[in-house]
């Protein structure tokens, strides 16, 4: 299992790099934002009507925002080693606690979205791949191209207008039950399935005419067995590998989709934290998003190794 260890070690190094880059970059960038940080925090804390110079001064003293920047950065990086991400400048709660809540929601959304896209995309693609060149295949190509061209928020708005406003089947926003997960997850899943179905279609079309399959047919193996043994498994490798590429779309989509559907996840929290200049929250959310991305990629690595035994020894 040398390949496995090496893959995971590379991901671990990547995770460390993410932590360092996010830690320093976010801090520098948010520090350089125009305007007075204490006022932003006070506005978030007390509401627009109650923000005043006095409230901002109280905030400045309370949070030590007048310390030199390197002391604040040093404190944060030191905390990072102890996995102490500090306290949200807006809510006053530990960032770690808030992230737990947000992360739970984001993982739920991402898992449901991935699940839907895996259930829809590859099977549909495989079905089309088996009929490459047919009218259905060409329709699939057009549908996939159109879906990929539509940004996530346009798809989401369309779904809200049809399923929440028009038909009234599902909630337009919120959190709590399963109904609320459906629309945001489908928004993300559509974009993912549009790509994975094409990858699966090409892989199946290729594997159907690849040498092992042709040889098995010539051996006289029934078509069902050929597909089971030679086509599906070989086609699965690029599909799973492509999952890794798609994760970027998933994570980026989360930022937009969570904002649109008022889904209290990491992406939503990130946008809020940036607007409120909540330095520890910006760092925390960006860090978690980066680490989530690395973790999901590691998962894809594992999956690829499982499906394709050749790589286990070759790597």
């Amino acid at each position, binding site marked *: 299992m040398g390949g496995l260890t090496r893959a995971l070690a590379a991901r671990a190094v990547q995770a460390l790099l993410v932590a360092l880059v996010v830690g320093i970059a976010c801090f520098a960038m948010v520090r350089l934002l125009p305007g007075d940080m204490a006022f932003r925090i006070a506005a978030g804390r007390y509401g627009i009507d109650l923000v005043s110079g006095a409230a901002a001064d109280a905030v400045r003293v309370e949070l030590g925002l007048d310390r030199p920047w390197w002391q604040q950065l040093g404190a944060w990086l030191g905390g990072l080693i102890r996995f102490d991400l500090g306290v949200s400048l807006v809510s006053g709660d530990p960032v770690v606690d808030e992230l737990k809540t947000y992360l739970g929601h984001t993982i739920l959304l991402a898992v449901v979205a991935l699940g839907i896209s895996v259930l829809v995309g590859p099977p549909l693609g495989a079905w089309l791949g088996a009929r490459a060149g047919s009218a259905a295949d060409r329709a699939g190509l057009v549908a996939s*191209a159109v879906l990929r061209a539509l940004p996530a928020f346009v798809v989401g708005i369309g779904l809200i207008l049809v399923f929440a406003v028009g038909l009234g089947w599902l909630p337009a926003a919120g959190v709590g039950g399963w109904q609320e997960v459906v629309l945001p997850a489908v928004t993300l899943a559509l974009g993912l399935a549009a790509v994975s179905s094409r990858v699966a279609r090409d892989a199946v079309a290729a594997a159907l005419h690849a040498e092992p399959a042709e040889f098995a047919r010539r051996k006289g193996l029934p078509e069902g067995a050929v597909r089971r043994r030679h086509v599906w498994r070989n086609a699965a490798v690029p599909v799973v590998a492509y999952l890794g590429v798609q994760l*970027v779309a998933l994570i980026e989509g989360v930022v937009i989709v969570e904002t649109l559907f008022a889904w209290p996840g990491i992406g939503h929290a990130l946008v809020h934290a940036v607007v409120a200049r909540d330095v520890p929250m910006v760092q925390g959310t960006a860090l978690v998003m980066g680490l989530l991305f690395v973790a999901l990629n590691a998962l894809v690595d594992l999956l690829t190794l499982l499906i394709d035994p050749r790589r286990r020894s070759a790597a």
Partner: protein
Amino acid sequence: MTAARIGWALLAAIAAFGILGPLLAGDPLRQDLSATLQGPGAVHPLGTDQFGRDMLARLTHATRLSLGFAAVAAVAAAVPGIALGLIAAWRGGIVERALVSLADAVMALPGLLLVVLFAAFAPGEFLPLYLGLSLALWVEYFRLTRGVAASLLARPAVEAARLFGFGPWHVLRHHLLPELAPMLVTLLAFSAAAAVTAISALAFVGIGLRPPTPEWGSMMTELLPYHAEAPLQVLLPGLLLALTVLGLQLVAGARR
């Protein structure tokens, strides 16, 4: 390749709209609060928006803005990406390892995250958007260039050129660029699509360009509440955005 031809045709049509349109259409900022959300008519061929501004004028200006932005962003990512890729392959050793690690670290971060942070840094400004996109997208160019350059440098002709003292510039112009060109079209189209999508997405989460700048994403979000009264006005910017991305993807995809 028909797909690529459709893509180029789409892009050409949109570019013509964005380049010639502003010369013919009126002032995209001129308001008329007594004629808001009008349907298509003689005075306003595509109707008016919620401020009574001419939709046609706004759409052409928005198209010009997005295409210009995409072109600059793609180049801003390509130039450092190619340069660093070449340097990594040329120098090797520590320099290469450091650059590869840097690329890995950037790859480990979702690109939009970088752009969001940069955009929040100076809301309404173009420069941070370019910087963020450039920082997120250069890696693709870097990896491609480094890969191609590494195999090129091993070739006898190039090795000879190096021995004769020709610098990286010579290698870039005479050996690397011709080799890269076809793949570069794919990457440029890909990063232009990413740039176009990114600014509309940023306008959507509220960190985009300042009003009253005509821009597809902010036009859509601003007009969305009026979807029942003026569906066409909401649809048009989205349509242009989708067609542009589609055109770029067709051009990029066909080369793969």
